[in-house]
Each structure stands twice: as structure tokens, then as C-alpha cells.
């Protein structure tokens, strides 16, 4: 297996979430320099608290999906150096379709789909100059399995998956590939609170009888960034212990 990452730089979008921080720690151990984005001071503090004890082998910068100036500033700072992109960024929006505020709907898709398309265009063009690059988009099993109240979340995830899929389709022969990972229940981030409340019920639905750990998802992402995984392009992989295989 080819897991040689020395000297590589990874842009980690949504870099202050628990899973991104676990991944960033694994990256530094593997020789990747993570560049993490945050959208609030709280996010920045979370990143520093978790990663600064590891010897400062990371950097962090402000990026707010929907704020185009923050993207321009990010790219002027890091633009020429990105080998990998791992995208965890996703705004919260729960609610029934028939109950949603229209203004929020437009804003949500602007931030989570249109802005992401601009970001992908700009980073892909930087990667094209270098003739290589790898994208891993972190989606969710909720993208493929409808749940009441998660329609907007799923629609944004599916739209983003489609953008990544096309990126890999269009630029694969230029050395730029993309893959989506759909994790199931993880005891971290948004999933934590849900599993606190519905843990037993959720566990009955998972054939492996356990939830995913942050560590194993982070390791899977590292594998997906490796040369050995380059064949996974323009596709979606489900990692859910079998949750969505049954009915």
C-alpha cells in the first residue's frame, strides 16, 4: 500500500469539527501539513486547543461559506500549495419542506452549493497548473436515505456530491480525482447529541452492532488520499456498518 504523504498539504474545509480535528492529528502523524478552515473564533480556538500541543505542524484560516471575500483571502494565502482537499463543511438547516422560510432556503443553497462550486472551480484550476490533486468530500448516509426534516441537508449534500463526481469525471485524466465518503452514525459532532438521545434505537439498525469511531473514519480518509486509493474516482463510498443496506 502506498501511504507516502511526506511534504503534502491538505486543505481541510470545516476544519474545526471533531472529525476534522481527529483527521488533522492523523495527518500530521502521517507527514501531511493540514490547513484548516474555521468560520468563528470559537472554531479557531478549538483547532488551536487540539492541535497546538502537536508541535504547530498545521495552519488555520477563516473561511465562511457564502463569503466570497474570505475565499479570495484564503486562496491568496494558501492557493499555490494545495495537494489535497478534504471537505467537511456543511451548514445546519433542519425543517420540513412545507415549513421552511424561503429566505433561508435561498441562502442555504447559495452558501452550501453555489459557493462550494466556486471554491471547487478555483482550487481545481490551481491543481490543473500542477497536474495533480485529490478531493475527498465527506457526505452522509442521510444524503441517500430520506428523513423527515433533513430534506435541505440531503439536497445540499447530494448537490455537492454531484459537483465532486463531475470534477473527478472531467479532470481525472489530468491527474485530479475526487471521491465522496458517506459515513453512517459516528459518536462525534452532530451525531453525538442524536446518539445520546436515540442511541439504542439507532444501534439496532446497524448490522455491525456498533457506531463508527472518529479514528476509523479519519484513517479511511487518509487511505482515500493515498496513491493506492486513486482508483476511487467520481464515485460515492458508504461507510456505515451496513446501516443502509437493509430496510
Amino acid at each position, binding site marked *: 500500500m502506498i501511504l507516502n504523504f511526506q511534504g503534502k498539504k491538505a486543505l481541510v474545509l470545516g476544519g474545526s469539527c471533531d472529525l476534522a480535528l481527529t483527521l488533522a492529528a492523523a495527518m500530521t502523524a502521517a507527514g501531511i501539513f493540514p490547513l484548516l478552515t474555521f468560520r468563528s473564533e470559537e472554531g479557531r480556538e478549538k483547532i488551536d486547543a487540539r492541535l497546538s500541543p502537536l508541535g504547530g505542524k498545521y495552519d488555520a484560516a477563516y473561511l465562511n461559506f457564502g463569503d466570497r471575500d474570505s475565499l479570495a483571502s484564503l486562496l491568496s494565502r494558501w492557493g499555490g500549495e494545495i495537494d489535497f482537499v478534504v471537505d467537511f463543511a456543511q451548514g445546519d438547516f433542519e425543517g420540513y419542506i412545507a415549513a421552511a422560510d424561503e429566505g433561508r432556503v435561498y441562502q442555504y443553497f447559495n452558501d452550501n452549493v453555489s459557493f462550494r462550486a466556486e471554491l471547487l472551480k478555483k482550487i481545481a*484550476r490551481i491543481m490543473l*497548473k500542477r497536474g495533480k490533486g485529490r478531493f475527498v468530500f465527506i457526505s452522509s448516509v442521510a444524503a441517500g436515505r430520506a428523513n423527515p426534516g433533513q430534506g435541505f441537508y440531503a439536497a445540499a449534500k447530494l448537490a455537492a456530491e454531484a459537483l465532486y463526481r463531475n470534477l473527478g469525471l472531467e479532470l481525472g485524466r489530468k491527474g485530479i480525482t475526487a471521491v465522496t465518503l458517506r459515513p453512517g452514525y459516528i459518536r462525534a459532532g452532530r451525531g453525538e447529541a442524536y446518539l445520546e438521545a436515540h442511541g439504542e434505537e439507532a444501534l439496532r439498525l446497524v448490522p455491525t452492532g456498533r457506531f463508527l469511531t472518529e479514528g476509523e473514519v479519519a484513517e479511511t480518509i487518509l487511505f482515500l488520499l493515498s496513491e493506492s486509493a486513486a482508483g476511487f474516482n467520481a464515485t460515492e463510498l458508504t461507510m456505515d456498518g451496513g446501516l443502509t443496506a437493509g430496510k
Partner: protein
Amino acid sequence: MDVLEEITIILAEILDMEGLEITPETYLIRELGAESIDLLELSVAINSRFNIEVNDDELFLRTLRIHLRAAEMEGRDAAGYLAEKYPVLTVSRVGEILADMGGGPVLRMKDIISYITCYGKN
């Protein structure tokens, strides 16, 4: 090295065609067979080499037919409308393009050169 020579070298690499002979009149798509992905690479290379924020639609005249339809809808003169939309093109080039559209994609090397000459910073 002039712009034509530089673009010729870049295109030869993108299209993997050694000893490529190009003049300002050469058609990129009709003659050289450049595909969308090749034009994307050309745009990235122009951005990098000439420090230009490239608008692909304008550089590669992609929206010609959309503009022509819009001109018709608005009852405007096609040549005048195109000249407004593509400030890089001369009046005579716009006339040439309008006369040439039946033959396929009209993009020629001289259109790329005009774009670079107009927007290039060095």
C-alpha cells in the same frame, strides 16, 4: 518571444502535438481539434503565464449564440451587440465571425492573442 509563439508552445504541450504550426488564422477547435478540457488547460495556462483573470466564456467565445439570440430578441443589430459583449474583438473581426458561423466553431488563434493583448499585464 511573442504571444503567438508562447501560446503555440503551451498548446503543443496541451494537445501533445510536437512541431505544431500555428498562425493567427488557425482555428483552435475546427483545425486543431481542441476539446473542452484542452481549452480549460489553456485558460489555466494563460492565467498563470500572463497573470490574467480569465473569463472562459469570453476568451473562447462560448456565448456567441446566446448573445446572438439576445440581440434578436431585443431587436438589436447583431454586429453591434457582439462588439459590446466582446470588447476584445475588432469590428472587422466581429463581421468575419458572423459570416463564418455556418462552418463550425469560429474561435481562431488571433482571438486568443487579442484577449491576452487586451488584458495581459506583462
